[in-house]
């Protein structure tokens, strides 16, 4: 690991100033950053440690019914916060389907949003990768790309975004609160991560020195609490990234879908909201036929980027099944295997 200067600011403003130096990077828990630094993929000159900043570790119910999650709230604390998990069960399920208990105990909300792309070639400094060396090419294109993107990819980059949490948040219209030298701004999470295009090295809309200070869920997001699930298909049952995942949330009135939310993970370099699929469901009865149509619409523009055409059909099935699970109702207790297709929950439809 390359050496670096370590600084520990005491205010957000001081941190934002310290992070404007070229080569500076924020350190929160470091669960992804240290891994990347050990691999030699990320080589910061300066680490700006924000873990001691006050006031960023709260889950706050705001006056208008929305919820603000501080950037330094640990993934496990958020998932196990009873009030939060009751109102936003798909977010809690997504969080608990990700990583391991040890990592969730350390990893922060802000850090989860800023996880780097999932691609073995990105993690290997010896490989050609337009992310770590723009213009060098993409070894994933002709390499082992079974798990790569099927939506929104470009000739420059076919990696996927690793987060589960972000998928559920995007489905529920979460907003990212950002602070930088020039003040505070906010942006929908859906617009926070960039698709690769010709500049896969530009991963988010953050400007130099800007910091995520919080994530907000609007009051409407809690309207889906009775019918909200996260489903994640993996190569092994636990502690694995998604091959494909989906967050599904429904508002059902007298057996008819009044509102639907769908987002997919593991399919693109950002969490992928499927708005057309949502529209198809409005006014439909909550049964399997419209779920299949919605799933087809969700993948309408999907294209294999390599040896991964199977992911398109898999994603359709995962979307349809996530919708069926959501229609069946949010379980009283978090399933033993959160997000898993192997989770046994009695009394609901498990096959779309």
């Amino acid at each position, binding site marked *: 690991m390359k050496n670096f200067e370590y600084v*520990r600011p005491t205010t957000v403003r001081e941190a934002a100033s310290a992070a404007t130096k070229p080569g500076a990077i924020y*350190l929160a828990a470091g669960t992804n950053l240290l891994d990347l630094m050990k691999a030699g993929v990320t080589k910061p000159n300066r680490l700006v440690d924000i873990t001691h900043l006050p006031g960023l570790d709260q889950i706050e119910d705001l006056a208008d019914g929305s919820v603000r999650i501080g950037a330094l709230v640990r993934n496990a604390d958020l998932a196990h916060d009873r009030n939060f998990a009751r109102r936003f069960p798909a977010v809690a399920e997504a969080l608990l389907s990700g990583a391991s*208990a040890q990592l969730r105990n350390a990893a922060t909300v802000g850090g989860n949003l800023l996880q780097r792309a999932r691609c073995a070639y990105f993690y290997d400094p010896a490989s050609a990768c337009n992310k770590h060396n723009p213009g060098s090419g993409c070894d994933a294109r002709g390499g082992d790309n079974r798990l790569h993107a099927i939506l929104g990819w470009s000739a420059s980059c076919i990696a996927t975004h690793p987060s589960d949490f972000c998928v559920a948040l995007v489905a529920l219209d979460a907003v990212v609160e950002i602070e930088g030298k020039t003040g505070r701004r906010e942006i929908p999470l859906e617009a926070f991560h960039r698709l690769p295009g010709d500049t896969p090295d530009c991963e988010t809309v953050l400007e130099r020195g800007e910091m995520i200070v919080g994530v907000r869920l609007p009051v409407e997001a809690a309207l889906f609490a009775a019918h909200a699930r996260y489903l994640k298909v993996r190569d092994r049952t636990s502690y694995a990234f998604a091959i494909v995942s989906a967050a599904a949330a429904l508002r059902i009135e007298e057996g008819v879908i009044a509102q639907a939310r769908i987002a997919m993970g593991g399919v693109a370099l950002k969490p992928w909201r499927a708005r057309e699929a949502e529209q198809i469901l409005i006014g439909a009865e909550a049964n399997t036929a419209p779920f299949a149509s919605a799933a087809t619409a969700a993948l309408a523009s999907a294209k294999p980027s390599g040896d991964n055409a199977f992911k398109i059909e898999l994603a359709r099935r995962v979307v349809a099944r996530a919708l069926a699970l959501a229609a069946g109702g949010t379980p009283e207790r978090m399933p033993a295997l959160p997000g898993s297709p192997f989770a046994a929950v009695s009394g609901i439809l498990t096959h779309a």
Partner: protein
Amino acid sequence: MSLSTTLTINGVTRTIELDDPRVTLLDLLREQLDLTGAKKGCDRGQCGACTIIVDGRRINSCLALAVSYDGADVLTIEGVAQGNLLHPVQEAFIKHDGLQCGFCTPGQIMSAIGLIQEGQAGDDPERVREAMSGNLCRCGAYPGITEAVLEVQKTPGTASRKEVA
């Protein structure tokens, strides 16, 4: 700023000068403090052999920069027994053959203590397995590990924070 970190390790508070900001909690424990119980398996947060409990929470010490954890309370495998009296989780691992070669065992035990404190798994073996999925065992002692955790879970109060510290 000077690179020092004040840590309470197994009940003893000490201020440690770090000669390099790159030192992880794992390397600090093993290389500078002669606490070699926590193991360096993958050094990337994938195997769990380095699991320790920091401020009451199990974490991967290989992915924690020591300088950032200034002020933290650290519990390692060396701190869980009281003299010759083993911690209930240690006893249960022996009773249920929750180990073979033993390399992953300190991490498994610290993870199990953390799991029990978290109070999420109860008496459901599936929940125990899920909650222990961040600890790999190449000898495949998983059935014994699960039985050991379940047994301690059934005995109220055996693994509370006070008793392990």
